[in-house]
């Protein structure tokens, strides 16, 4: 491991600066172009989906005569119109674009209408008559545990003998709790515009986190080689994992419509349809047993993570694996068994969502920490601290050694001080003693998140950099911009390398024609991978320019420096733009396509050994809440966040990720509830019924600080990935609510299910007083 605490950052001019998002000025003017804003090519048609009217069964007849006769309709598509494979699944071939016989979930796309206007297409889509020989759908985790259906085989790993350790421990507890799913609610819904070219060519403008996979699936559905398909993504109006595999479907449908009609075709899902048709964060039920000593130090932990994957595998294999990788969070669990069930239900296929299963695995062990503390009468923070990874006890349940575990303890102790945890704990106790109707709760929870795709081949990236003869720089890479500021950070890296202001660098839309075989922008890895690749390309070009300048000036090449938009050596100095022009005249290549792959990582899933993560990112959060014990209403009163970003490439963007991630996680655990009825219909399918946080839900006291010690691992500029981890800071809110519920009764372990809606909190209180 190339790690050194002695690493010191060199002075920088562009990197490590709090520059605004590269599109900020366009955003605020309404002039940033999203797919639906692209000026439509002449003759563009619009596609709407005809949705299944039952959740499970066999489609026995489909009468589309009224659809075809509806005003404005140009074509109606069914599975029979697919020239290639009717398969949009990213991992296993287990999900069709359009229903072929078997209906897999309520609302699944059965047919598609192509019409002159979007309104005409949507209206016509409701005129289809379908007969489905329906069976009782399996909807919830409990249903799937009865049917036994799986999307993938059960999988477990661990260390030692957890059952024996629990049995031998001085104290034991067991429990189960439900962890809800989450809708992405990207503000820009799923959208793709497909424009047919000559022959079999197809260009798709997609709101996609994974243009390469989108290209594969479009090509597969059309039955053409990948080289005939170009997918381009300038930006998304939010992704959060919901436009990784899930964006491919709509790109493929638009492309199919374009192929059949020969005209440009756009799919833009209505928000309600987007809810029904696209996967969400997996809901879980964690069944756990734990053994521990008088001080709450854990001897054995045995957890079964039941994950509701929905109707197909989609990305669930990776999601549930990651839940396992984070089931220990940053704790030492001497004997541990982590089991999983990848449950198949007759519901939309659950998918990637910020944290990718990690949050669900992590919240389970945090719930256990609170249970142990409650039973022992200890402060939960003390129990957490007693169980942290430490010298000699520094391995995760899957055997990876954690070298910078001291960072985690230091951050927890720092936050304990800055949040005045102990003093507030005492005041809250006093308040609760005299307040019969309202109770306060406080919690400080840590997080440790592994950085790298656990599917090793995805840990690679490409970039393409051109320097033009006026010195302006064209930057392209395989990563996509969804608001996280990736384009800004990579542009900072390239500008720094060339020693020019960031205004020299033009970041261009992600395109499969420029950088092929890219990985999805996911796993928090966007900057780590694409930033490295772009840095390599820029360094290569810079080296050529330096060699040219050195030869011209007759100086050693290593003396040529690039800064302040100039190249210089000794008394020689030349503007970067002039050097670029001179290089061109001298026939020096000013373009480079580069590649980066993360070193040192490996993972053998069958043996459950290896080093799946390049490094870990840490965080800690302290939340205070108040609950109304009569109604279950809850307010988050204060949150203090401390998050590890290494040597931040852009502190402003990183704070944005930390704050935004926390609030999104808070929504997951409090107000955001996905409700399915017995027929498998999602009844919370719009913002009227599905409630993400609004401004007033943000804690009135909300302190965020970055922990900026350089990453001991050789990441780009010693920064750390920041996309997903902060979401798990919100586990502190769940834990604080639990603490407030504890205050309603001197003992007992409440059943507090997430999300903690007023009803969930009231149920938890009643589970303690026996009144339920």
């Amino acid at each position: 491991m190339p790690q050194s605490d002695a690493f010191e950052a060199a002075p920088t001019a562009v990197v490590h600066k709090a520059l605004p998002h590269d599109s900020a000025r366009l955003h605020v003017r309404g002039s940033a172009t999203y797919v639906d804003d692209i000026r439509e090519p002449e003759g563009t048609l619009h596609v709407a989906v005809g949705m299944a009217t039952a959740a499970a069964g066999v489609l026995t007849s489909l009468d589309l005569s009224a659809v075809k006769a509806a005003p404005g309709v140009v074509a109606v598509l069914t599975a029979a119109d697919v020239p290639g494979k009717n398969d949009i699944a990213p991992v296993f071939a287990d999900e069709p674009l359009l229903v072929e016989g078997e209906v897999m979930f309520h609302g699944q796309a059965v047919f598609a209408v192509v019409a002159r206007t979007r309104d005409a297409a949507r209206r016509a889509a409701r005129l289809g008559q379908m007969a489905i020989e329906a069976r009782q759908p399996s909807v919830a985790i409990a249903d799937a545990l009865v049917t036994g259906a799986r999307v993938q085989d059960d999988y477990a790993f661990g260390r030692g003998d957890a059952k024996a350790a629990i049995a031998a421990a001085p104290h034991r507890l067991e429990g189960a709790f439900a962890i809800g799913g989450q809708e992405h609610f990207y503000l820009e819904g799923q959208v793709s515009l497909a424009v047919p070219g000559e022959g079999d060519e197809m260009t798709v403008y997609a709101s996609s986190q994974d243009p390469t996979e989108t290209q594969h699936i479009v090509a597969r559905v059309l039955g053409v080689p990948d080289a005939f398909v170009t997918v381009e993504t300038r930006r998304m109006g939010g992704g959060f994992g919901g436009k990784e595999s899930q964006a491919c479907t709509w790109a493929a449908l638009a492309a199919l419509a374009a192929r059949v009609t020969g005209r440009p075709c756009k799919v833009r899902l209505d928000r309600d349809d987007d809810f029904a048709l696209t996967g969400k964060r997996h809901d879980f039920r964690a069944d756990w047993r734990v053994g521990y000593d008088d001080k709450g130090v854990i001897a054995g932990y045995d957890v079964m993570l039941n994950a509701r994957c929905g109707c197909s595998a989609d990305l669930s294999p990776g999601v549930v694996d990651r839940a396992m990788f984070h089931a220990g969070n940053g704790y030492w669990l001497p004997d541990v068994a982590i089991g999983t069930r990848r449950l198949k239900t007759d519901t939309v296929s659950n998918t990637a969502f910020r944290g990718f299963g990690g949050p669900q695995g992590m919240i389970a062990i945090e719930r256990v920490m609170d249970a142990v503390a409650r039973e022992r009468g200890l402060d939960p923070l003390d129990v957490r601290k007693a169980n942290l990874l430490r010298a000699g006890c520094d391995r995760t349940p899957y055997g990876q050694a954690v070298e910078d575990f001291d960072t985690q303890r230091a951050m927890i102790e720092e936050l304990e001080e800055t949040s005045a945890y102990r003093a507030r704990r005492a005041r809250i106790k006093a308040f609760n003693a005299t307040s019969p109707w309202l109770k306060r709760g406080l919690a400080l929870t840590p997080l440790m998140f592994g950085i790298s795709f656990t599917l090793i081949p995805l840990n690679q990236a490409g970039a393409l950099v051109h320097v033009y003869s006026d010195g302006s720089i064209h930057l392209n890479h395989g990563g996509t911009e969804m608001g996280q500021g990736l384009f800004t950070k990579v542009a900072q890296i390239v500008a720094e390398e060339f020693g020019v202001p960031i205004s020299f660098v033009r970041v261009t839309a992600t395109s499969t024609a420029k950088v092929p075989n890219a990985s999805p922008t996911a796993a928090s890895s966007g900057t780590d991978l694409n930033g490295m690749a772009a840095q390599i390309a820029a360094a290569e070009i810079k080296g050529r320019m330096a060699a040219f300048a050195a030869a011209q000036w007759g100086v050693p090449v290593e003396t040529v420096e690039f800064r302040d938009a100039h190249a210089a050596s000794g008394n020689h100095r030349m503007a970067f733009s002039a050097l670029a022009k001179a290089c061109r005249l001298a026939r020096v290549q000013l373009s480079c396509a580069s590649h980066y792959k993360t070193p040192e990582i490996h993972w053998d899933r069958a043996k459950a050994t290896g080093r799946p993560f390049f490094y870990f990112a840490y965080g800690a959060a302290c939340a205070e809440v108040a609950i109304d014990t009569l109604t279950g209403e809850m307010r988050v009163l204060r949150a203090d966040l401390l998050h590890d970003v290494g040597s931040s490439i852009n502190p402003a963007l990183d704070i944005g990720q930390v704050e935004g991630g926390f609030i999104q996680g808070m929504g997951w655990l409090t107000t955001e509830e996905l409700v399915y009825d017995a027929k498998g219909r999602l009844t919370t399918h719009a913002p009227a019924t599905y409630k993400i946080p609004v401004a007033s839900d943000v804690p009135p006291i909300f302190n965020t600080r970055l922990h900026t010690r350089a990453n001991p691992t050789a990441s780009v500029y010693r920064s750390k990935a920041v996309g997903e981890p902060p979401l798990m800071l919100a586990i502190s809110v769940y834990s604080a609510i639990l603490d407030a519920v504890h205050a309603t009764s001197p003992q007992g372990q409440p059943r507090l299910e997430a999300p903690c809606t007023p009803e969930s909190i009231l149920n938890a209180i009643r589970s303690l007083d026996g009144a339920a």
Partner: protein
Amino acid sequence: MVTERRTETRGRLQFRFRGREVALTRFSPRATVLDWLREDALAKGTKEGCGEGDCGACTVVLARLRGGRLRYDAVNACILLLGQIDGAELITIEDLADGDALHPVQRAMVDQHGSQCGFCTPGVVMSLFAAYHSGVPATPASLNDQLAGNLCRCTGYRPIVAAGLSTCDGAPADRYARTGEERAAALEALADGRDLFVGDEARFFAAPASLEALAALTARFPDAILVAGATDVGLWITKQLRDLGRILWLGRVAGLDAVGEAADGALALGAGVTLLDAAPHLAALHPDLGELMRRFGSAQVRASGTVGGNIANGSPIGDLAPALIALEGRVVLRKGTETRRLPLEEFFIGYGKQDRAPGEFVLAVEAPRLREGQSYRAFKISKRLDEDISAVMLAARLDLKGRRVAAARIACGGMAATPKRAANAERALIGASLDAPETWRAALDALASDFAPLTDMRATAAYRMTAARNILWKTLVEIAGAGAPTRVGALHAAE
């Protein structure tokens, strides 16, 4: 706005946009402002996020004359019918910057890193622009209220609120502030007081300018859809895809937006009074009504939605009805030249069914003021505090004789197919002593005979019943005045 009434009907929609007057003689009655912007004007800055007025990505600002002055209201373009902007100035995200110079709220959003993916940003900026022109300095609380209808999934809102705090100081100094007088004059010129009728008898958008004209049109077209704010009707179009051919918009009817007093001194709110304008008057009746109105929809919805619309819509979860039923509120209806007045609870006959004859319309809603010896509370429970629909709503008015309950009116929303009184609980509470909580139990238990609530996506039946009981308990605890805190929203973090 009414100058002199002219008799001839106007056959074209007219509004101001990008510094000019736009006149439209042909448009679909069901066209929305968002459709018109994106598809006809090819102005793509305003986004569609949900198509139902809940996310605010489509927020635009309408500048309208109120009492001779310009008022800037943020509204949701996705469910605002195009015809509803008659006589207004439509301001969108593209209008704000002056060449390369960003508007102060745009500048602040950049400086505070208030945008990430940028998709909600145009709507957020327009809401901040409305706050900038509100005439009062912004506070964190006022910005939370202004932004409750703007969902952002990326930032966590902190930088957006910071952008508002740094710019919205109550003293606007932008181009709009400088041109206020001439733009007000331009709108004054559009306020012709004429009836608007665009289309033919089969399909039209009509906006009568007087009660008489409205009464005549409702009599002639009893099947026409009466639209006030369109905060619900808009969804019939965008979600149910209904082809509404005949629309009668109430927003130009002179006098329908009047606030006054009934003969007995009750607050009288014209059916066309927006929820925004009604809020301070209701807050004056009781602070709980003020809080209820603050939480009512969002700023965008309150600027469009009306008191009459909320009542006439008949929703079992409309928040105004139970709050006013507990106050002994009344509804005033008009058909032709006939006017009738009935207790508000009697207006709601069954699910989706109201005591309103074809051609009849809601004229006003009246809310009696609290008298000496009366105590009132109203509570709303929802998954999210702001911009959410009630799982349970309970309002109660108690007439006290000393420390005993002499009479009670208790009304609930979300507990039955209609907003409904808890008659058994009301009876059971008579004679209860504020000093003897055991005398409250009978009323709590009686709720179970008053209501048989449903389970839906907002709450289970069991929760609704428990919560209703506990709110009634809390009502009594508060009125009894024990002193321990009961409002979770009033707490601050421990120091």
